[in-house]
């Protein structure tokens, strides 16, 4: 049974159909949110809020897009709200992520610093550029799908991706 069949079943009163939709989508959805917000507790809250919203709004879902696109759109709107409210993030020391506690090699230090600067630079990108970049690279979404979930056109999604990568390269320069 595909998602659309499950939606129809749910509308007829079969609440188990929604449980199946949750089983299919909750983990990828939460991981997508986690990659953007980088906080597992927040990712859980946002993901659950999106699923609850979908549960309540499903009778009004016109099925003009796929259930997945619709659900991701709900979730990304919640992510946008969260990012707007959140203070500029200070990332946990990326050196903690290094594999051992011995003094890091210069190469590792360079990589860690680069990563720290990269995360900050991504945070500073305009919202749409940032989300386009993250959906394109982390989720490997095509530009049409990105436009569907974020709004706008396929062309504007391409431009946002190009601008985001250009800005990041200019900010990070040749440091590694």
């Amino acid at each position: 049974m595909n998602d659309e069949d499950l939606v129809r079943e749910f509308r007829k009163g079969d609440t188990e159909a929604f449980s199946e939709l949750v089983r299919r989508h909750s983990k990828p959805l939460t991981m997508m949110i986690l990659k953007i917000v980088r906080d597992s507790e927040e990712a859980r809250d946002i993901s659950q809020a999106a699923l609850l919203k979908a549960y309540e709004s499903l009778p009004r879902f016109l099925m003009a897009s796929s259930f997945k696109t619709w659900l991701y759109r709900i979730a990304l709107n919640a992510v946008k709200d969260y990012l707007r409210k959140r203070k500029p993030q200070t990332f946990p020391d990326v050196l903690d992520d290094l594999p051992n506690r011995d003094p890091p090699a210069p190469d590792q230090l360079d990589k860690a610093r680069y990563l720290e600067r990269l995360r900050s630079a991504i945070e500073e990108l305009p919202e749409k550029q940032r989300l386009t970049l993250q959906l394109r690279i982390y989720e490997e979404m095509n530009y049409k799908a990105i436009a569907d979930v974020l709004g706008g056109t396929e062309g504007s999604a391409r431009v946002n991706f190009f601008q985001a990568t250009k800005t990041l390269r200019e900010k990070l320069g040749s440091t590694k």
Partner: protein
Amino acid sequence: MKTLDCQNVEKWVIEELDQGLTTERMTALDDHCSQCVSCRDIRTEMTTLFSAIAADVPEDPGEEYWKYYHASLKARLQEKKAPQNWWLPWRVAAASALLAMVLLAVTLLTFDRTQKVAAVPQDESSVVMEELYQLYGPVSDETVTPANLQEQALALALLDGREAPDDAIIGWFEVEYEPNHALL
């Protein structure tokens, strides 16, 4: 073969890393970068950037996280009642109300317009007649002749403090000799 200048290198490099380039473009990019140090640097920086972003992915939070996730989501879902098609009767009611409002608005607007068209000349004429009455006494409808109209023009001109038109003054004196004129 398509040539490449430095201005387009960054765009082509992003395309290369994002979706890939055609063989023809890839060759052009390789040839250009082999000769141009700054463009080669751009390509290297962009490659580093793409691989760093792709590698910087948070790990799966683990089994416990997902167990708690599903348990808490289930609890939150149970707090909510299964959604009904409550919106359907509301939509019908809202559509009916809207239709009724539109009909009412159309009726009222149409009514107002006809009232205004009919009312304006009546109001103006009654004001004129009132002024004439105050100046010259009662004037019956039967007495409205071209000469009366001249009288009215004269009266209005006097009221407004304007100079009365010549033919109105002449008309006024002429009608004094007409035996049927009500003002006499």
